[in-house]
């Protein structure tokens, strides 16, 4: 690493990332940074490339151009399971729990790359404190949980890897409004405990309310960026996403 250190102390840095599905270009030179202890929101409409951005970060697909660094390390071409081991954990869209595994085994799967039994037990306890419902349903199959409980489990599972960066894809999708409150409150709690979060949401208002900074994606391009408050106040964002 003889090159100069990056100017920012960003934990995660995407620089000019292009990504394709076959021939269709889904991302056009996307640059995003996430700093230590930040909540960063990625907002935009359906098909804007939010999920694709997460997928390129977590190694489920690889960028055609551009680079991704995490903690100063180049991870552009790193494979998914190695990226998890580096400390980036994604709670995928549609939750993607293991429906026919017990709640506790889903959580254990979250800690798959870890070997420290004591730490795992400690984090399991932390998840159960955040989501007491999960403790009650410990031995139930994940597929038999309600939608809200499944979302809690998805976030809990992501936390079990003790991530250096937590990526949440549409955590409020399909939840009753009152549960959305609980989920966003928990996101802030997790962040306050020291975990940076990259949040992808269609629910732009809620996401920008909790986010320190945000990016607005449109058809694979970043069209606007700023602090959460700035974006909430921006006329463009209000018109496009907040229906004002």
């Amino acid at each position, binding site marked *: 690493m003889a090159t100069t250190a990056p100017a920012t102390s960003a934990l995660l840095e995407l620089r000019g990332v292009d990504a394709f599905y076959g021939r269709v270009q889904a991302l056009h030179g996307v640059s995003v940074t996430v700093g230590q202890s930040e909540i960063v929101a990625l907002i935009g409409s359906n098909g804007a490339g939010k999920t694709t951005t997460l997928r390129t970060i977590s190694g489920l697909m690889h960028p055609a151009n551009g680079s991704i660094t995490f903690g100063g390390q180049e991870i552009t071409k790193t494979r998914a399971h190695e990226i998890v081991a580096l400390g980036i954990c994604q709670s995928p869209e549609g939750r993607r*729990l293991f429906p026919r595994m017990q709640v506790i*085994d889903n959580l254990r799967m979250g800690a798959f790359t870890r070997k420290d039994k004591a730490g795992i037990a400690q984090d399991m306890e932390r998840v159960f404190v955040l989501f007491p419902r999960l403790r009650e349903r410990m031995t139930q199959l994940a597929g038999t949980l*309600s939608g809200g409980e499944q979302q809690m489990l998805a976030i809990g599972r992501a936390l079990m890897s003790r991530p250096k960066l937590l990526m949440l894809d549409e955590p409020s999708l399909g939840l009753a409004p009152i549960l959305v409150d609980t989920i966003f409150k928990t996101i802030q709690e997790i962040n306050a405990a020291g975990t940076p979060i990259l949040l992808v949401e269609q629910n732009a208002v809620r996401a920008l309310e909790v986010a320190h900074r945000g990016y607005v994606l449109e058809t694979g391009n970043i069209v606007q960026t700023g602090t959460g408050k700035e974006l909430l106040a921006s006329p463009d964002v209000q018109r496009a996403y907040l229906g004002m």
Partner: protein
Amino acid sequence: MIGWFRRVWENDPRKDPNAVVYFLLAIFAVLFPLFASVVTGGSPNFLLSVAGDAGVYVLLTLGLNVVVGMAGLLDLGYAAFFAIGAYTYAFIASDHLAVTPLQTTLHVPFWIVLLIALFVAASFGVILGAPTLRLRGDYLAIVTLGFGEIVPRVFKNTSTWTSGVNGISALDTPELPIWFKGPWSGDPLAVVQNFKIFDPLGYYVIMVVLLVICVVLVRNLQNSRMGRAWAAIREDEVAAAAMGVNTVQAKLLAFAIGAAFSGFAGTFYGAKLSLVSPENFGFSVSITVLVMVVLGGMGNIPGVMLGSLLIYLVIFMVLPSLPDTVTSIANAIGLTGLTQASGDFPGIGEFAARLKFLIFGLILVLVMLLRPQGLLPSREREQELTKGTHDDTIIEDVQAETG
């Protein structure tokens, strides 16, 4: 040891159907020689020999259960690994190599071949798996189906090495370095060296020991980190990768372990029959083992063992003796007319013989209709089928979560 018993007791094994079945299977295995001796009036050899053959299928089922039940990979060519295990024993534990271009013979002891066959079969599992395990579901099934057809054909057509359709015969009999003779075998008490295991009881004991080892192994595997990774892959491969599972490696391992069990079974089978022939490892073997896994309760170890024993009983005992059974029943209830051929009717015995596979099919269909989860399913499948899984929040849930 005491701690283990206490733990088992505190979990109250009577509430756990699996524990009950393990217990019953163990008792059954121990008492079976005695039972066979009593029912046959002192000549248990036939029944013990059948039990040994049934054990081969239990071993195969345990192995395929790792691949299909635990990791969710549909393998339709499992008999190929069985063949590879059996031929491994045939090559290195008989005079056969003398008639091949090698012109030499190898007589490796049975116990060592067990280990060798395990590695050979597992290696073939990896060789087949490495290029194909990137495929999913149906595609993998087709490729394994092809492999299952290719392997017996290779053994059949490379006659310079394998004697083709004639197979390889006069395989070595397993030997124990030291054995005790005594009143139980009708001899005076004595120590025998290089004891050859000829009698079916010997094979029966070997099989029971093999099965115990294998059950302990797969049980530990299932409850291990790798077992959870397999379950996760079976549920959702992408999500498993997102959790940090190296999915290709995990699937390869499942394939290799499944193949290894099959190699075990093949070696035992070859040694017991003292003959291997390409005809013994056809598609029907792969399918029979798959049926045993599904019908017993995919993913549940005692379930698939129970399934394999019952299916074995039906295929190899009940169905072949069906014509005789119905004939004697007809005679006993006075319908002797039915036993005679008349016109198009061939007599009830022959009639039953013709309907054998229809009856087998009906049994399978009925079991799957009445118990789609298998005879003794894992707790997971049971819960899934009784409670159902859903992905939507319903009103009561919201109230329960917020209230």
